[in-house]
């Protein structure tokens, strides 16, 4: 075998799901010791291609070759034996089993009468030291952090002597420090002669780690270039098709206070319990809350959504008390809700689009006869109008909601929440997991609502988003909320420090500022 022979080659791989072509005649090659980045938006077909390689799917046309040998399609076993190891985006680990059990599964004959745990443990410990992937073999996976779980996934592949390692969006769940550690590990791995495919839609990561980049768009390879000569703008354009500019805030006079929270505390202990939170949002204003997940943002969002019942302090919406623990009353009072998890809380995937669209106003006379009988023809025609207005790409109001892409599902949620012209919009991570086009759309909708006079609370972990989209910004840490000060008065670095609990998160000044 010469160095010129690729360790892995895709030849004209095509895969269709119904009418959707997920992979369109893809040809690619990978050589030992290199990191190939596979760049593309969500839904571009990156994961599908890797699932074909790993035998989860069968390609409709074309084949994958390892060392010039064609891989039998649809066989995970064959892929593993050929030396392919995959670190899935959603970890394939069992929480209630130990690290060692997770790693040794499938490495021994199923007909053996006992497991050689001693040998397995020794091999694992030696390997984890060798690669700098330290993890205790005997703890339950459920007790590990996300970064540690990823280490287990990588070890699982290495334990089976993988020569080709595939990482599917590996940094999506990692903190910046964990990502840096991962990159160092990956570089060490390639020095030992392994080849890596690194799947991502984050440009800066790909430029930092890869030696070669292939860009996927709508299932096809639209560009392939050496990282050394690649430019960020060029990659972005290849990935999205046309350059999409994210919207920016324009100055506008603020109106009356819409949401006034003072002295708000919730029961319980822990980082997500609210402690004396004060916040005012006026009409025509977007206030952002930054913070690491789990510091009370969800508690505040639940409370404003009408899901939490008990609290101390006062929450006033348009000069009257916000109803507590009654989502229907909260919606009726003028709150538009964009929940954090659109699959779990936003939409019922198994139900049809029109049913999801009417779920917040079942009692409205447009929709039903005093809440008893649903007028489906009225509901559906309204759904058709909403689908058109919010540019939801779907086959019609009777399509099953779970078949929609993330972006289209988020548009549906916007349609449901914004059609009511809410005075307060609660947007919790509204662009998480969306592609560039959908992000721009969602942000534009929020800005339009601001123009119209809505007050908007934007909770996000993406500081760039907060800096470009908010009038004022506050930081949440351990259930305490800092004063919301005009965006731009603090740098990203300062906000980052406050998110980690350093810097001042002392409430109290805001009231004197506002009144």
């Amino acid at each position: 075998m010469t160095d010129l022979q690729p360790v892995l080659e895709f030849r004209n791989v095509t895969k269709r799901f119904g009418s959707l072509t997920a992979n369109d005649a893809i040809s690619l090659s990978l050589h030992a010791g290199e990191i190939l980045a596979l760049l593309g938006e969500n839904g571009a077909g990156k994961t599908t291609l890797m699932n074909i390689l790993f035998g989860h799917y069968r390609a409709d046309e074309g084949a994958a070759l390892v060392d010039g040998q064609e891989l039998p399609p649809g066989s995970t076993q064959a892929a593993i034996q050929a030396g392919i190891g995959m670190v899935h985006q959603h970890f394939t680990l069992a929480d209630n089993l130990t690290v060692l059990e997770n790693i040794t599964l499938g490495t021994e004959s199923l007909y053996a009468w006992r497991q050689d745990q001693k040998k397995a443990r020794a091999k694992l410990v030696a390997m984890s030291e060798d690669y700098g992937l330290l993890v205790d073999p005997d703890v339950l996976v459920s007790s590990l952090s996300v970064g540690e779980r990823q280490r287990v996934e990588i070890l699982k592949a290495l334990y089976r002597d993988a020569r080709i390692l595939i990482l599917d969006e590996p940094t999506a769940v990692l903190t910046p420090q964990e990502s840096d550690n991962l990159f160092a590990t990956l570089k060490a791995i390639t020095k030992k002669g392994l080849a890596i495919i690194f799947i991502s839609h984050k440009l800066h990561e790909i430029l930092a780690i890869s030696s070669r980049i292939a860009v996927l768009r709508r299932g096809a390879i639209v560009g392939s270039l050496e990282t050394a000569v690649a430019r960020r703008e060029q990659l972005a354009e290849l990935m999205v098709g046309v350059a999409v500019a994210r919207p920016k805030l324009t100055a506008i006079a603020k109106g009356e206070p819409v949401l006034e929270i003072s002295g708000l505390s919730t029961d319980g202990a822990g980082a997500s319990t609210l402690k004396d939170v004060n916040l005012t949002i006026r009409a025509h204003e977007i206030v952002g809350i930054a913070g690491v997940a789990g510091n009370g943002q969800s508690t505040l969002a639940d409370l404003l959504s009408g899901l939490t019942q008990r609290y101390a302090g006062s929450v006033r919406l348009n000069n009257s008390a916000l109803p507590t623990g009654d989502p229907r009353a909260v919606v009726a009072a003028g709150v538009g809700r964009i929940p954090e998890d659109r699959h779990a809380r936003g939409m019922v995937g198994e139900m049809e689009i029109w049913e999801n669209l009417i779920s917040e106003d079942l009692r409205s006379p447009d929709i039903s006869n005093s809440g008893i009988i649903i007028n489906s023809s009225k509901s559906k025609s309204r759904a058709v109008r909403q689908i058109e207005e919010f540019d939801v790409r779907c086959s019609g109001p009777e399509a099953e909601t779970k078949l929609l892409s993330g972006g289209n599902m988020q548009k549906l949620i916007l349609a449901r929440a914004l059609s009511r012209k809410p005075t307060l919009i609660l947007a919790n991570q509204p662009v998480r997991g969306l592609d560039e086009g959908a992000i721009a759309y969602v942000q534009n909708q929020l800005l339009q609502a601001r123009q119209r006079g809505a007050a908007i609370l934007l909770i996000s972990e993406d500081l760039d988003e907060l800096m470009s989209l908010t009038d004022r910004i506050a930081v949440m840490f351990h259930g305490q909320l800092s004063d919301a000060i005009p965006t731009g008065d603090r740098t990203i670095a300062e906000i980052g420090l406050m998110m980690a609990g350093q810097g001042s998160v002392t409430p109290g000044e805001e009231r004197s500022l506002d009144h």
Partner: protein
Amino acid sequence: MSDLFDILLTAGFWAATIRIVSPLIFGTLGELICERAGVLNLGIEGIMTVGAMSGWMWVYQGGDLWGGVIFAALMGAIFGLLHAIFTVHLGLSQHVTGIGITLFASALSYFVYRMLLPDATTPPKIVPFQPIEIPWLSDIPLIGEAVFSQSAMTYLALLTVPAVWYVLFRTPVGLAVRMSGENPVAVEAQGINVLAVRTAAVMVGSAFMAVGGAFITMSWFDAFYFGMINGRGWICVALVIFASWNPGRALVGALLFAGLEALQVRAQQSVGAFIPYQFFLMLPYVMSIVAMIIMARKTKYPQALLVPFRRGERV
């Protein structure tokens, strides 16, 4: 009250407890194996009936006792395969399929019994397993009589507990079964066929259940009656949850239930004059509900229990 304590000191009570616990052990372990692989098997009640009928019938038709046990296990495995085809391969509702299997298997057992013995008015009898006294150990007071003077099938039941534990927790195939119940995608990603693992687990588990049924007609009693499983299958389903899917705890739970059952029979005789006997009949079930409520807080369900696995589906 002192009457109750007297009961606890009789060898008869303990012997009865061990006898009552045997079919529960087989059934609970069978259900546990299925659920560890991620498949709820509510066919258990019917599969125990099949085992009770087929094992007994084998012996009645002239076969030998152990041949009957093996035949019952085989029949159980066949109904397990049926359950697996519907729930594992076709991914249908495990609840609905299980209840369907129970209705089908019980009805079929009664039908076959009537077909083969159309003229029997009183249920005919076989010569069941006889107690075997284990030398020396059976001479220990109380325990000797209770534990070491039982039938071979009871000894088998007691030995099955550590055996199932060992296979589940100390062998590669056990790891594959447990992993299938926790995260089938992980099993697939390691190159193991999830559907095959689950099918095999359901078949083996169902064979255990059928042997539990066979114990009732071949070791406890000597004849086959209609309705003789009498909800024991459902008790096993509850015991699995009580046991947190752990064979050792399953034994403890089964012993607790069997003890209450044995106690209530005796309590009926001693204090039955003051309290209606239905109260005692109810006791074991009330106690199991209470125990379940207490245990429920801590239970860790296999995370992929009830979740069908389909290859190549978009996740």
